């Protein structure tokens, strides 16, 4: 593969060793019991799986984004919710801190976060507007040297387990045609006025908490503003492709995880003295098509990450991965269930978990439709630019 180097291959092998020895034995237990993988998160931090693309002076590994994708793919093959936990802390929130944090904020939050000693959650979504942040109601108002936050945030990943929440709220009047007037604040978990609801009971990503956060007259000092007040949405626009790309790498791994299970089953399940694979053309064709989709996704994922590493990735690639990755993962997992037959729909075999988890990716972070809309806007803009 064009993207594989000796060092990257070794990092893949080490990640695989970690996932096989430590995550795989408990992965289904976390899914069944809805238990957040705290121990594995800490271990991943010890091993350096958090903070892969961030500079060493921030406590990161100082590696590139392709290396991050390779690691994330391995995590997705075995335990998607661990990937969600890691990515939500490290990429979604951590990426913003890495980009816009002051030296003091980097030292206080980012360095321990990159070691897995501190867990971040990014809090953006509200009941109104969804992905359209301009309809956001949550706001913060200055009060002397402090800010007072009032907001309700929904479906926040890592809620209840995170130590620090990075909260996006309005801090000024909307200025049409600009991204001004939004600010990110660090809110530590024990801050008075901040509460977390019990986690939602979801169809997938069981074991990763999604909950409602309520900020009622939460007072934070001005030092808790990320970067510059009013520039929050600008930081998010710069960083959101990374979150979407992470979904691409994770869903690639999920598709491979489901495919490997189905392939093994089809080779070992005997009917009339022959394996399913050798017995039925329909099974062989299913696996051939699954493989084809996986390799097509792989090409897109690693092309995008390669461009990201070279600093020339067009931002729409993030959305392409956010659309294509979940689609492939869901398709492959659905076909894998079909190949398994009855055992495929039984909780505990694990193959159905990939399907449930894949479906969540159609919506989490940004819906496929929102991503398609943004991609279409890009296509239109590009058309008129080139006309």
């Amino acid at each position, binding site marked *: 593969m064009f993207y594989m180097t*000796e*060092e990257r*291959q*070794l*990092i893949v*092998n*080490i990640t695989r*060793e*970690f996932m096989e*020895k*430590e995550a795989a034995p408990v992965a289904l237990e976390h899914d069944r019991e809805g238990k957040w993988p705290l121990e594995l998160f800490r271990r991943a931090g*010890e*091993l*350096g*799986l958090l903070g*892969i693309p961030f500079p060493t002076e921030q406590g990161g*590994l*100082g*590696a590139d984004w392709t290396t991050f994708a390779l*690691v994330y793919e391995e995590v997705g093959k075995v335990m998607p919710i661990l990937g969600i936990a890691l990515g939500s802390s490290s990429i979604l929130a951590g990426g913003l801190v890495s980009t816009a944090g002051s030296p003091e904020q980097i030292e206080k939050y980012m360095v321990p976060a990159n070691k897995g000693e501190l867990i971040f959650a990014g809090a953006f979504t509200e009941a109104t507007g969804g992905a359209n942040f301009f309809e956001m109601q949550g706001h913060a108002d200055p009060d002397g040297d402090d800010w007072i936050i009032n907001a309700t945030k929904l479906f926040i990943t890592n809620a209840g387990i995170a130590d620090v929440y990075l909260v996006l709220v309005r801090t000024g009047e909307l200025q049409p045609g600009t991204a001004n007037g939004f600010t990110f604040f660090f809110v530590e978990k024990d801050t008075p006025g901040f509460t977390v609801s019990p986690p939602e009971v979801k169809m997938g990503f069981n074991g990763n908490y999604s909950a409602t956060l309520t900020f009622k007259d939460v007072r934070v000092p001005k030092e808790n503003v990320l970067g510059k007040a009013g520039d929050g949405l600008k930081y998010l626009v710069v960083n959101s492709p990374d979150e979407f790309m992470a979904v691409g790498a994770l869903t690639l791994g999920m598709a491979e995880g489901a495919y490997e299970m189905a392939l093994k089953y089809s080779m070992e399940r005997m009917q009339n003295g022959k394996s399913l694979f050798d017995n039925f053309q329909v099974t062989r064709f299913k696996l051939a098509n699954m493989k084809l989709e996986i390799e097509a996704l792989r090409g897109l994922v690693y092309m995008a990450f390669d461009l990201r590493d070279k600093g020339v990735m067009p931002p729409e690639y993030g959305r392409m991965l956010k659309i294509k990755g979940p689609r492939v993962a869901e398709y492959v997992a659905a076909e894998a269930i079909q190949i398994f037959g009855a055992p495929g729909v039984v909780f505990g075999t694990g193959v159905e978990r990939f399907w449930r988890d894949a479906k969540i990716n159609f919506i989490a972070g940004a819906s496929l439709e929102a991503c398609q809309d943004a991609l279409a806007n890009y296509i239109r803009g590009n058309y008129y630019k080139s006309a």
Partner: protein
Amino acid sequence: MQNTVACYKWVADEADIRVHPDLSVDLSRAAGRISEYDKHAIELAVQLAGNSGGQAVGLTFGAEPVRKSLKDALSRGLDEALWIKAPEQATVDAVVTARALAAGVKSLDGVGVIVCAEGSGDSYARQTAPRLAALLGLPVVTSVCEATFVDGVLRATRRLEDSLETVAVALPVVVAVLPQINRPAIPGLKAVMAAGRKPVTEKTAEELGVDLAPKSEITSMKGFAQARKNVLVESVADLVAALKKEGIV
């Protein structure tokens, strides 16, 4: 201060080996990896070197593909590596391997303990440590499940069929360890990145005067399939009776 040597082998990844219905073994798609057993040897060598304040040196023998093992081995805590390079077409058996490793050890200074795994992940022939010790004229302690330095000697516990035997042996010594001796740590990604900066010495077998003439050859290799008896039972009593007949209960 004693330096410690960990001998390790680059083997075909067991997960990639396919046995065809005719029991022929397909290694063509198998990637290489450090033998899982040898990771225990590396772990112990690193630990003993840490205890004695010496260096832990990885020692391996093989053709070009072995190059891929070096960073992996070094990321597991070894301070440096010595690779004895075999000619591409060489037929290597346990005797040749032991000769090469012995030549490698002789080229190192201040070696106190040479750690091997009891067997390798491919053939598990259990010959390397005894042959290496014989060639070096050193004592060998096999089946080791515990080892530590006490007052300048190595105290090792051997797991025998139905007993544990503890021996104290003067250095230098060759030990062969069982997987029970430790749980190899998974290296962190920072250790992987740092491994590329650790020293690696390459020497050819010819340079070290290694006799590459093997004493044995593999004439065939077949997969092993457990034959099933397919006994049908109709009751628990029948099952118990069948198990008793087999001497299982």
